[in-house]
């Protein structure tokens, strides 16, 4: 499954880059995130609860940040599994000032691939796309509210 989109964060790119890698803020912003702890340089262990239609379950996984080019881009690699299946994702996040050049604003554009398996894939396939979009929007909304 391809995932792509963009979101306007109400902070400058440097600040945006910083909060996008701050475990404390990310843990608050990610829907269903129950814990996010650093286990190595640029590597985190994550616990989160996922709700997908009639399915719900806890996921445990790892988040890794790679190809860092502050404050313009980094790559996010996510791997998790739990009772309702597993998910794997790999995406590139690009941060740039808006075309109009408004100060204190960052356009975060993201593009990546996600793969789900197990019960989630067997049962929730039709809903995964919509759920992923919804979770991403919730994430950025929350991040925006925490960023200020």
């Amino acid at each position, binding site marked *: 499954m391809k995932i792509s989109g963009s979101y306007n964060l109400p902070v400058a790119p440097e600040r945006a880059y910083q909060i996008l890698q701050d475990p404390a803020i990310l843990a608050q912003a990610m829907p269903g995130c129950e814990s996010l702890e650093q286990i190595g340089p640029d590597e985190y262990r994550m616990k989160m609860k996922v709700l997908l239609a009639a399915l719900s379950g806890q996921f445990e996984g790892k988040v890794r940040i790679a190809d860092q080019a502050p404050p313009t881009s980094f790559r996010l690699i996510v791997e998790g599994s*739990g009772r309702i*299946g597993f998910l794997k994702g790999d995406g590139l996040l690009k941060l740039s000032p808006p075309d109009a050049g408004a100060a204190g604003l960052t356009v975060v554009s993201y593009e990546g691939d996600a793969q789900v398996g197990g019960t989630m894939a067997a*049962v929730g396939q039709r809903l995964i796309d919509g759920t992923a979009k919804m979770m991403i929007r919730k994430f950025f909304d929350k991040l925006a509210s925490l960023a200020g």
Partner: protein
Amino acid sequence: MATTTTKTETFVGKRIRRREDPRLITGTATYVEDIQMPGMHYAVILRSPHAAARIRSIDTKKAVSAPGVVCVFTGKDTKGVGAVPCGVAMPDLRVPQHTILATERVYFVGHPVAVVVARDRYLARDAADLIEVDYEVLPAVADPEKALAKGAPAVHPQWPDNVAFTYHQDGGNIDKAFAEADVVVKQRIVSQRLVPMAMETRGVVAEWRGADRQLNLYTSTQIPHLVRTIVAAMLGLEENRMRVIAPEVGGGFGSKLNVYAEEALMGYVSMKIQKPVKWIESRRENFTCTIHGRGHVDYYEVAAKRDGTILGIKLKLIQDVGAYHQLLTPLIPQLSVLMMPGLYNTQNIRGDIIGVFTNCVPTDAYRGAGRPEATHGIERMVDILAAELKMDPAEIRLKNFVTKDKFPYPTATGLMYDSGDYATPLKKALDLVGYVKLRQEQADLRKQGKYMGIGISTYGEICAIGPSPATPAGGWESATVKIEPSGKVTILTGACPHGQGEETTFAQIAADELGVGLDDILVIRGDTAVVQYGIGTFGSRATAVGGTALYYALQDLKAKIKKFGEMLLESDDVSLMIGQVIDNKSGKAKTFQEIAGAAYRALKLPPNTEPGLLATRFWEPPNFTFPFGAHIVVTDIDDETGQIKIRRYVAVDDCGNILNPLIVDGQVHGGVAQGLGQALWEQAVYDDNGQLVTGELTDYAVPRAQMMPWIESHHTCTPSPINPLGVKGVGEAGTIGCSPAVVNSVVDALSPLGVRHLDMPLTPEKIWKVVAKKN
């Protein structure tokens, strides 16, 4: 005191209501799930979420210490248990070691990895989530054609080409036929993967009685005796120390014509924990780990003369095997090749099968098993040929049928069609549907831009499976008939049913032979400790083979009854009728009760006669039977929504003599429902990573009652000369006849748009896209 009723009325051929139905429709029947035992434990199986992965490690510590959990077993524990067998022997068959739990690798989503045993099934389920499996995910391949491509991931590393087996069959002179042809039509035809979807999922209760050294295995199966032989061997247990009971079986359709890992696994668990253990497959498990059906990609070529005479047929068949061979996996596409010529008089064929491993659950027998695929292929090709030659599809069929003076008819594939009259059901169906008028109406509708189609399929099939040389485990069937001392009649049949109604039809046969009432007869099946060895119910064989064994056992028993009658009546000229033996000279009679009483009391015996009234027969059929028929489907297509409406469904089936028209109707209706499912709605879809994305009934469109058309079911009758009952079999006919009739109808409707072929399922989306693109 119980008495045996004597009846002058006969039962064979009548619409007798099924004697098994009251308990089924009142929910009082006993299925595996209904079995309760003191000390029962419950098993939940952890399955792979990956289609291909290496297992780095399995950590069961948390699960073992979870509340209620007794133990957890993994592939390391069960290494001593024998592999799940493939029952088919072929020269170049590649058989991967199919352990009951995964050891180093997993090969498909749903592959069993560990089993949790607890005192409560919910605690077992919760504990399964606590098992930590470290997988190294590997690339997977789910599409058989992609699996054959160079560089495809190897399902089994030892066979990088993913070829599981090949099979080749030539008949006549195919090259000459194609060289002499005026026209050759070619088409790629897909028969998609289907989920058999028995209403009752699989389930096993295993009860090890250590003190008796006895394993009782209750399992929802079509083949209890074969399960006993095979599972006992897998467990290293003497076969006579194992008893398999198939209680009520809620549908199988071939999916329970198998021996599954879970059957041996539960036996293993019960022997380990010394307690009874129950495993009931969930619906989601059923989707991922019970065999699928079909899974063909067929490349057809048909050579013909300009007048429509078919000269030869070529088929290259790619069979999606899945990750393993189950019991009969490699045999199923061979049935397709055997059935390639359909009802047509051509002596030139070439069939090539490539069985391909994929990271999917194995395919195996599903209602029709190979014959629906073959019939779909040849019936589509005949329509494509008719369109190419601008011939009427009914006319081209009538032109090519094997004519009724040619039977027994040897086919190019080595079969001997027993009896047939193929034109009669087609003509009857054409009359019933009003073919000529419909074609006129179609022409008028086309002028108005409306899409109406008429689809014909004239199918043949291979039933009464089958002579032992042609079946992996023997093709005979057994029956025992006993007349108890009270005169009551007990039948033991090896043809263990799963919805076929043998408690009714077998009682009808016995009632007429003995002249007793149906209520005097009990039909027992599905218990290896009670019933002599049997093969089981599949391949439309129960009545034709099992019923025949019963018929011959009844003849033996009647001879013995007569002997006792002669002795008691002091006559050498007696007849057996309406539940008594009558002296033809004096008219004096002895009832069955009197005869049974004398036979068991044994104060005096006829010469060379043993006490008791019991007869057993194992009957080996000399040939298959070959039923046939014609289905015609009239469809109207809504060009705005792509919805297909079936206006008429006319089925004229010839299954030989009919013992119970009510049961035959039921078989036709059920068969058509599953044929329509394939034609219009159902498809098991794996994504590129081998994830089954149609894993629940919300995504897998099995037909519901309100989706069914009215089926106009009719018959012609051409008795089989193979058995004394003259029956052929009807369990799969509906499915086999259906799908090509539906697709031919829809393609006919859309032919003004230049449509020549469409692959199943014909979903509204698919049809709408075709119509929208052309408009």
